[in-house]
């Protein structure tokens, strides 16, 4: 076993994959529980899908796809937040429209570029082995930024998640805080697209928090537990996919899903 791990880590792409995966676990552990508590799972999924528009554009123009993916995820997060609060369009309708538009743009741009099918597959279903060190640096930076924000705004985010109507009545800037949460979700989601792909991002974002919540009672402990679970899923998934030569994204998600079902069964 040790030999195999040693052999795995000989490869540069494996080391960067593991580094990106562990940083992503920190993100999904901390942001994932807010996504669950604020019931914005569908918004988060919509943001992930809409990011594909930016990724496709970057791919087509030869820019960094991850960078443009972040931009389009951010625009979507703000767009959904503003459309649903300022117009008569309901939030889930807005999400549906943004999500499909982003996907369509992404597919269109990518079909205009080179190597269409293989790369689309990578973004939809994840290709952690294609993570560059530059990607790792971006991921670490985003993780650090989000950690700082959550520490600074811990009590505000708790009021927002628990009772936003009361928050507004006591002068909490609820609207802006909600947009900020969506922005943090956008960052996290784009980072995780690299690892498990657009289609499965939502599972990695929510499963560790959902399991943590079944067994732990206080928010900081749930966050810590979710980070640990995410790290286990990602690293174990990488090892298994390396040994069996199967896709890493799918392996990670199946591990997480299995853990969720077992945890739910144990709770009963």
């Amino acid at each position: 076993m040790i030999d195999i791990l040693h052999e795995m880590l000989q490869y540069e792409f494996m080391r960067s994959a593991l580094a990106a995966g562990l940083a992503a676990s920190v993100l999904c552990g901390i942001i994932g529980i807010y996504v669950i508590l604020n019931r914005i799972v569908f918004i988060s999924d919509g943001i992930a899908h809409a990011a594909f528009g930016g990724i496709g554009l970057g791919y087509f123009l030869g820019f960094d796809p991850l960078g443009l993916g972040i931009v389009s995820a951010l625009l979507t997060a703000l767009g959904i937040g503003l459309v649903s609060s300022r117009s008569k369009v309901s939030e889930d309708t807005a999400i549906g429209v943004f999500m499909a538009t982003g996907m369509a743009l992404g597919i269109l741009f990518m079909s205009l570029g080179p190597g269409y099918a293989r790369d689309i597959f990578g973004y939809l279903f994840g290709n952690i082995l294609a993570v560059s060190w530059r990607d790792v640096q971006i991921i670490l930076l985003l993780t650090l930024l989000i950690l700082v924000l959550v520490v600074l705004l811990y009590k505000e985010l708790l009021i927002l998640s628990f009772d936003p109507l009361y928050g507004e009545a006591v002068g909490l800037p609820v609207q802006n805080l909600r947009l900020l949460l969506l922005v943090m979700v956008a960052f996290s989601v784009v980072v995780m697209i690299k690892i498990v792909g657009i289609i499965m991002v939502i599972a990695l974002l929510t499963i560790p928090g959902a399991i943590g919540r079944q067994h732990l009672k206080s928010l900081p402990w749930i966050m810590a537990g979710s980070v640990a679970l995410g790290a286990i899923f990602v690293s174990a998934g990488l090892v298994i996919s390396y040994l069996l030569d199967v896709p890493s994204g799918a392996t990670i998600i199946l591990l997480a899903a299995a853990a969720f079902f077992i945890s739910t069964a144990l709770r009963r």
Partner: protein
Amino acid sequence: MKAVSIKEVWVYRNRHPALENICLDLEKGDFLGLIGPNGGGKTTLIQVMLGLLKPSRGDVRILDREPEGARRYIGYLPQKTFFDRSFPVTALEVVLMGRFSKAGLFRRYSLPDREAALRALEAVGLKDRACRQMGSLSGGEQQRVLVARSLVSEPQLLLLDEPTAGVDAAQQTEFYELLSRLNARGMTIVLVSHDISAVSTYVNKIACLNQRLYYHGSRELAAEEIERAYGCPVDVIAHGTPHRVLREHGK
């Protein structure tokens, strides 16, 4: 300085007036009981006082400020609080939320914030429940935690929208006594309630709201006034002495 000054306020909902020409002045230290039928606009009026709802016409001043600017001096108990029963939060953490504006953005709750939260829990008789999960408390206990949250900032103006919903009779009396003590220390209180007789024992002013405000400026409210507001005969039950506040009235 008036605690509350509402002048000729109109609120429209879907082109129908929800509040018609409301005028209400409260001095510092007043204790107003606000009664009225369901849908009469009691919650709407509270929302106007908090600046959550902009009136279509009229002027609202709270503690000599715009309502939004006065929020940090207001304690507020919403009519109904919807939250997830399995939300990972303790009673103490919920009460601390009431210290938000005192603590300030980006800041952590300080030791005085925590002490104030424990005192507020003690005042509603739940000090021993401080570290319990909110969802594990009974409905009445949860309501008292939310009352503690509205008190914890030591507000100058306390707005309570149906605070005794789900709280049993013995605790209700205790709760009204607590409000009396706070009022005696100078806190201005607006209490929305269905319970006319209980309210009239403790308040010094009663107003009845059914789109329009039937407001007497004293706590003696004639049965005819209440009937006019409700639009139908109302059975007013007064407590016996020494708490009789409503005049003798025929059936």
